[in-house]
């Protein structure tokens, strides 16, 4: 899929939690998009030459619009621009970009991955959610799949109902939310995602798909390599 330049219109802005917002962009020209789950857009920010990368979180079957999720806590140029938008505003971006996609089962690497482990931190969940739903619903992938999702506070969590619904509908999917600043009442994993990964038994022949800040991805990669996971089965997307 070649990169194209898109003009779009903001049609909906949703606050998902105190930190995270979702933006729905209705495509104008071209008016349809084709992409793979895990890919991202390169948003043009007025007055800034550097393009800002945001993973597409909407499903591939929604071809006339895209959705992105943004952590609004860091006040960079991209966040300042996005949070200034209101429905009806025009935006432009290049898409699709990126190679962070689930290895096709028809490929050698994909065929070797007998289960899939997704590891996300913060808004790193955006491409992961898309990949996970795509594999379960559209690919009808029956391989065991586990999601480790790290956040700081309980109030940061969003989409929990979506993931719980998925776990109900697809017994091959398990969710492990991990909080680094959990209250004493929190009964699930606490600490960093690496802490949770460390104490859980390793899954044989798994492909690992990691998305988060650079340091988090490096930490997870180091842990997995120490545990004997082969480099070619560690797929990642980093952001600053």
């Amino acid at each position, binding site marked *: 899929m070649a990169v194209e330049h898109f003009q779009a219109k903001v049609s909906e802005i949703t606050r998902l939690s105190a930190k995270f917002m979702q933006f729905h962009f209705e495509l104008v020209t071209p008016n349809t998009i084709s992409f793979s789950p895990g890919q991202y857009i390169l948003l043009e920010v007025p007055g800034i030459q*550097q393009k800002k990368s945001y993973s597409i979180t909407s499903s591939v079957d929604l071809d006339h619009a895209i959705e992105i999720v943004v952590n609004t806590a860091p006040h960079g140029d991209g966040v300042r621009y996005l949070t200034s938008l209101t429905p009806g505003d025009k935006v432009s971006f290049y898409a699709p970009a*990126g190679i962070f996609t689930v290895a096709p089962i028809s490929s050698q690497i994909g065929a070797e991955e007998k289960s899939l482990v997704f590891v996300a931190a913060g808004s790193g969940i955006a491409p992961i959610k898309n990949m996970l739903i795509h594999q379960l619903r559209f690919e009808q992938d029956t391989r065991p799949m586990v999601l480790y999702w790290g956040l700081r506070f309980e109030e940061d969590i969003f989409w929990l109902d979506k993931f719980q619904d998925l776990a109900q509908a697809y017994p091959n999917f398990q969710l492990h939310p991990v909080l680094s600043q959990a209250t004493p009442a929190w009964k699930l994993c606490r600490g960093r995602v690496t802490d949770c990964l460390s104490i859980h038994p390793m899954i044989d022949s798994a492909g690992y798909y990691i998305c988060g800040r650079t340091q988090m991805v490096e930490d997870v990669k180091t842990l997995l390599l120490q545990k004997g996971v082969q480099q070619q089965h560690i797929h990642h997307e980093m952001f*600053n």
Partner: protein
Amino acid sequence: MSDDQQAVSETSQNGKYRVQVIRDKCIGAASCVAIAPKVFGLDDEQKAFVISEDELDDIKLLAAQSCPTAAIIVTNIETGEQVWPQ
């Protein structure tokens, strides 16, 4: 094709911009590959490298401006000026 047309064609293909990847800064997002697949590739460690300079200057510049870590330096070889990052 006249000599003049040939010269224009060669200039537009090779251009005046040269690109260089700072390997340590590259995080393998592959936006450069998406924008300019003739110019950039990814190696075994998912780090970008330059395959060829055979591309329009605007495309090379856009690829550099798409890099989330500004790991691509664009230099104007006619003036010696660093065009990106500014």
